[in-house]
């Protein structure tokens, strides 16, 4: 049996292993997020910073995106802390490892890397998110944003130069 934590993100259920869960923080007790180095952070009470993960950039949740979160799920991966907006406070549970299955072969290798396993209870599908891949995705998002900002500044610089002439 594997100890798991089930969390509801934007109306869908996702699972993490218990050892990945650092803290479940109610929104009312959460500090105000702040920007730094093209990322959004939360300062925890013990002085650590958790990166807010905009999972909506990775998941096409569509209509469910309007769902409001009332907790943050803080997860740790190595030295990094990630904060995921969550509805409800989640549930601890356990699952038999042999019942967990991979995504069907129609999905790409990268999808399978992000979602290494699924749990099906006959009514719902719970997807496990791989934190290593999530961290890589967040780094990539920050990189792409920075590239876009540089490009915009370059274009503005060129336009400014053209006007000056």
């Amino acid at each position: 049996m594997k100890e798991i934590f089930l969390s509801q993100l934007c109306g869908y259920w996702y699972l993490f292993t218990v050892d990945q869960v650092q803290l479940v923080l109610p929104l009312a007790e959460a500090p105000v997020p702040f920007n730094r180095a093209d990322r959004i952070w939360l300062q925890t009470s013990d002085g650590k910073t958790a990166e807010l993960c905009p999972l909506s950039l990775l998941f096409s949740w569509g209509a469910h995106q309007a769902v409001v979160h009332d907790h943050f799920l803080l997860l740790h991966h190595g030295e990094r802390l990630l904060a995921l907006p969550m509805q409800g406070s989640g549930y601890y549970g356990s699952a038999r490892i042999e019942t967990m299955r991979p995504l069907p072969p129609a999905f790409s290798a990268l999808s399978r890397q992000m979602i290494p396993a699924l749990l099906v209870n006959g009514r719902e599908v719970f997807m496990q998110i791989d934190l290593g891949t999530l961290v890589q995705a967040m780094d990539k998002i920050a990189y792409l944003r920075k590239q876009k900002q540089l490009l915009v500044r370059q274009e503005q610089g060129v336009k400014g130069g053209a006007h000056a002439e």
Partner: protein
Amino acid sequence: MQNKTTALQQRFFLLPLAIDTNGDEPWYCLFAQIQVVGVLGRRTIYPVPFSPGYLKGCIEWQDSVVPVIDVDLLCGGKEKNPRTPLRQLLLVRTGQIDAVSGEPLKLALKCTSTVSTFKPSVHDNGQIVAENEVPPALAAQDLSRGYFRLRNYRVMLLDLDGIVQGKSESTKRVGGDDGMFLHGSDG
């Protein structure tokens, strides 16, 4: 004669395609009764990150997980208004076998229009469709086993074997040099 008789006893399913036909008659995907596992009502589609646009996610069905395909997008068409409610899911079996279960791999096809059915009569014979009748968007996808005209319908036979195994070009492109296929990286 016996094969034709057997074929006539079958029902066929027609899935309308929302692709640009320049005002000509619409196109449909044709599925034989033997391919169709069932027509499912509305249910939750679970999105999966880093998927090509036509691969909408997966559904739970009989304690298994089935990928969901938007056939319009797969065939080069445009997605209908995302707020257009899902009407049905056409669950089809493909020619590929799951290595673990030994069962045929299945796909759920997202239907925002009603799937119609018909039983052909002895007088129904397929007619060849000229190559220049096929919309460029369809021809470019290289997903067809054939095009023909049946009764008043222009139909194509969709080849889903590569899609169900993740061997389509779109799926291979995901995670290429850029590394990530992001659902909008604007921030």
